[in-house]
C-alpha cells in the first residue's frame, strides 16, 4: 500500500480539481481538490451535512458539477461531451442503503452490470459472481432475494456487485451507517480485505477506528471545504486545524474514537 499523499495527477486514478457544487445557489462543495493514487485508500470524514455524499456523487457524475473537473486515469470525465454512462463503468459504488434491487435475486443483482453493460455472457458472469460470492461466504445465498438477507449480508452483496466488473475505483458512502452495530464488523472486514488486495478506494465513514487502521490518507471535510488531509495518525491524532480538533473532540465525547 502506498502511503504517499503527494502524487501527481497523471499517476492518480482519481483527481478532483476545484470542484464546486451548489444546491439552490447554496455552495455545498467549495473548490475541492483531491487525488487518489492507485492502490490507495482515502477516507472522507466530517460531520453530517459536510458534503461527503455530495462529493462521492459528483465523482460518480450522479450530480452535475457547477465548476471544476474530475479526472479518472487522467481523462476529464466531467467534460460534458463525455458519456457519463460510459465513465461510470470504471467505478463501483455502494451507498448507505437500498443498494440491491429487491426484485432480482442476489446473483442477478451481481451479474446485471457485467451482462447488460459490459456484454459478458450469462455463464461467464454467473461463474464470476459465484466465485466472488463464495469469497465473501455468501455463495449459498446466490438464489435468495435481498429481503431474505441481513443488512450486513446485503451490504456485502452490494460490494460484490460493485466488484463484479473490476472497476478502477471503488466509492463507498457510509456503507455501515444504516446497519445494526453487530453487523458493522463483517462489512468493514470485507473492505479491509479489499484494501489489502490493493483496490483503490475512496470512502466516507463515521468509523474512526477503522479509518485509523485501514486508511492511507484521511480527509476532513467541513462545510463543503476540504480542511485537512494527511496520514490517519496525523489527522486523527494530531490535527493541524482547529475545526478538525473540534470535530474530533465531539466524536471522542460521543465515545466513537
Amino acid at each position, binding site marked *: 500500500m502506498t502511503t504517499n499523499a503527494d502524487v501527481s495527477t497523471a499517476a492518480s486514478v482519481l483527481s478532483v480539481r476545484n470542484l464546486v457544487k451548489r444546491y439552490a445557489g447554496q455552495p455545498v462543495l467549495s473548490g475541492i481538490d483531491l487525488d487518489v493514487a492507485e492502490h490507495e485508500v482515502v477516507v472522507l470524514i466530517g460531520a453530517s451535512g459536510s458534503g461527503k455524499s455530495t462529493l462521492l*456523487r459528483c465523482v*460518480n457524475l*450522479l450530480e452535475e458539477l457547477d465548476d471544476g473537473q474530475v479526472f479518472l486515469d487522467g481523462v476529464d470525465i466531467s467534460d460534458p461531451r463525455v458519456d457519463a*454512462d*460510459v465513465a*461510470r*463503468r470504471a*467505478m*463501483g*459504488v455502494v*451507498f448507505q*442503503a*437500498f*443498494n*440491491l*434491487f*429487491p*426484485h432480482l435475486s442476489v446473483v442477478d443483482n451481481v451479474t*446485471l*452490470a457485467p451482462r*447488460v*453493460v*459490459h456484454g459478458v455472457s450469462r455463464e461467464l458472469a454467473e461463474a464470476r459472481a459465484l466465485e466472488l460470492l463464495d469469497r465473501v461466504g455468501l455463495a449459498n445465498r446466490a438464489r435468495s432475494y435481498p*429481503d431474505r438477507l441481513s443488512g450486513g449480508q446485503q451490504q456485502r452483496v452490494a460490494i460484490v*456487485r460493485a466488484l463484479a*466488473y473490476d472497476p478502477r475505483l471503488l*466509492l463507498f458512502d457510509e456503507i455501515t451507517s444504516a446497519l445494526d452495530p453487530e453487523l458493522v464488523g463483517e462489512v468493514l472486514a470485507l473492505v479491509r480485505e479489499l484494501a489489502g488486495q490493493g483496490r483503490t478506494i475512496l470512502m466516507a465513514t463515521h468509523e474512526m477506528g477503522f479509518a485509523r487502521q485501514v486508511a492511507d490518507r484521511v480527509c476532513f471535510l467541513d462545510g463543503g471545504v476540504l480542511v485537512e488531509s494527511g496520514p490517519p495518525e496525523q489527522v486523527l491524532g494530531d490535527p493541524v486545524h482547529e475545526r478538525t480538533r473540534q470535530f474530533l473532540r465531539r466524536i471522542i465525547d460521543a465515545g466513537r474514537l
Partner: protein
Amino acid sequence: MQRERLAFRRSRSRRSTAVALVSTLVFAAVAWFGVTSAPGWPRVRQSFFSLDAAVRALPAVLEGLWLNVRVLVVCEALILVLGVLIAALRTLRGPVWFPVRALATGYVDLFRGLPLIICLYLIGFGLPGLRLTGIPNDPVLLGGIALVLVYSAYVAEVFRAGIESVHPSQLAAARSLGLNHRRTMRIVVLPQAVRRVLPALLNDFVALQKDCGLISVLGAVDAVRAAQIASATSYNFTPYVLAGLLFVLLAVPSARLADWAARRLARRQGLA
C-alpha cells in the same frame, strides 16, 4: 393438550361458518320478502325478470358479449403499452425533453378530465364526419379508439405513481452500475413499479370491462346493443337485466384477482 386446542379451534371455525350461513339466509329472505311484497312487483317481475324473454334474447346477447370481450382484450393490451409509454415520457428530465413531457402531461389532463361518453361521441361521430380518406367508420374500431384514449390517461397515472414510489437510491444504484436511463427504467424501475400498482391496474381493468358496453352508443352490436334490440322487439326489459348479469359475471374473476393482488402486496409491504 395440542389435540384439544386443535379440536377447539376447529369447532369454533365450524360455528362461525354456520353463523355466516344463517345470517346470509336471513338477510336474503328479508330482502326477497321486501321486494316481492311491493305493490308493483308482479308488473316488474313480468317486464324485468321474464324467464321466457331471457331465453329468447340469450343467443344474441351472448354473441354481443363475445364482441365486448374481444374489444376488452385488444383495448387493454393497447392501454397498457400506451400507459407505460406516457408514464415513462413524463419521467424524462432535462430541458431537451420539455416538449415531450408537456405533451404527455397535456394528454393525461385532457383525457382524464373528458367524460368517456363525450369522447365516444367526438371520436365516433366527429372523426368520420371529417370525411378524410383512411379514417375508418366502423363503430367497433372508433369506440375502441375512444376507450384506449381515455383509459390510457388513467393507466399512465397509475404507472407514474408506481414509478415515483421506487426509492431514488434504486435509480442512483442503477445509474452507478453504468445503466443508461432506458435500461434503468426497464430493468430496475418498471418491474418494481408494476408490482406495486398491480391492484390499481386490475381495478381499472374491471372498470374497462363494463365501459366496453358503451361502444353500443355508436351502434356497435355488442351485448348492450343486442339487449336493446331484443327488448325493443319484445316490449320487455329482461334482456337488459340479462346483459347486466353477464357483465357482472365477467367482472367477478377480475375483481377477485384484484383483491388477491392487493392482499399479496399488503403482505409483502408488511414484511419489508
